[in-house]
């Protein structure tokens, strides 16, 4: 879409605050869903608006309108809480090289192949002691813009982890999808990792299942 089709920031902020005249709203509603570039820009402006509010940098006359719009909505309040929480994150730790034998790796990576139809083989992953995170690298993932992954404990049929917006990474093994979760969220049992692809139009289709037996060292 041509740049000169883009509305001014001020107009979008009025839209976000819910004070734009209704005749202008519908076109922006449609673009907020159907126009990728516009949707990203709207998210950026909204993040900036919320950040200015939580850091006390929002103009005085906009604060009341902001609070009317955002504090009256559960989604809005959650966005404010997340903005506050992001500012409370501790600084990234300086990268100090650790002697290899001093501690277990923080992330234990394990490559997984999809289950073959009718085959009974299940990969066994032995997790070293002291590992904080486990990363499964799923291979043979087709070519989708995004993926959804569901990890189910097969002994209880309980979903223990789910992510609806993962992307593939290109590497020596071709395209892979990486699933990283806390080691403490795993039990010594067998899990099914179900990978589905999300097409550009948003439709979801199953790709592969990756069974894995987890054992702790």
């Amino acid at each position: 879409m041509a740049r000169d089709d883009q509305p001014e920031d001020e107009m979008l902020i009025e839209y976000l605050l819910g004070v734009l005249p209704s005749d202008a709203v519908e076109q922006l509603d449609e673009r907020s869903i159907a126009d990728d570039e516009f949707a990203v820009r709207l998210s950026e402006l909204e993040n900036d608006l919320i950040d200015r509010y939580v850091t006390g940098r929002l103009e005085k006359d906009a604060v009341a309108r902001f609070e009317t719009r955002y504090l009256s909505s559960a989604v809005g309040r959650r966005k404010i809480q997340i903005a506050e929480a992001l500012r409370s994150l501790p600084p990234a730790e300086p990268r100090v090289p650790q002697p290899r034998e001093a501690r277990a790796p923080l992330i234990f990576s394990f490559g997984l192949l999809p289950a073959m139809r009718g085959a009974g083989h299940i990969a066994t992953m032995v997790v070293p002691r002291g590992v904080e995170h486990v990363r499964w690298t799923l291979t043979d993932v087709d070519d989708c813009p995004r993926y959804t992954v569901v990890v189910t404990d097969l002994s209880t049929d309980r979903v223990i982890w789910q992510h609806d917006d993962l992307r593939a990474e290109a590497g020596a093994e071709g395209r892979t999808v990486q699933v990283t979760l806390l080691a403490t969220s795993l039990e010594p049992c067998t899990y099914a990792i179900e990978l589905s692809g999300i097409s550009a139009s948003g439709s979801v289709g199953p790709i592969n299942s990756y069974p894995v037996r987890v054992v702790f060292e």
Partner: protein
Amino acid sequence: MRRRLVGYFDRKRCIAPDDLADETLTRIARTLDERGVITDMPPGRYCYTVARFVFLEYLRSDQRRQVSVDADPGVGHEGATSGDETPGRRDRLLDALERCMAELTGADRELIVEYYRGARGSTIEHRKRLAAERGMTPNALMIRACRIRGRLEACINHRVAEDGA
């Protein structure tokens, strides 16, 4: 797409934007199942058309407690004092944030932490420096941070809902 739909229904001051977004996606999935492909309009526009139908149905339904923002801009759909500001909920949110941060790649985690660390008043300079350190334009850095934040928000909402269930 789900995040965009939730934002749309939230801006319309619907009571349960998540449910309406899910209803929209369910209808789209059903159409895809029946027809295999949508050819009469671009996919994004089709999503909007379905969302608008869902919204209009919502306006007519019993779910509606307040009118939409278009019809009555001054009215909120929920009280500002619902119970999601309690210390317990805040702890759950911080816990969810920590777990969702752990799911990011190291580079994304470092970027998002540094992106929001800028001292008040010097944010622009701080982010320019961050972008330069990463060989990116400030705009590209902003888009990247926005995408990571969007993923974090979705992950946190999912975790909090899961913990509250």
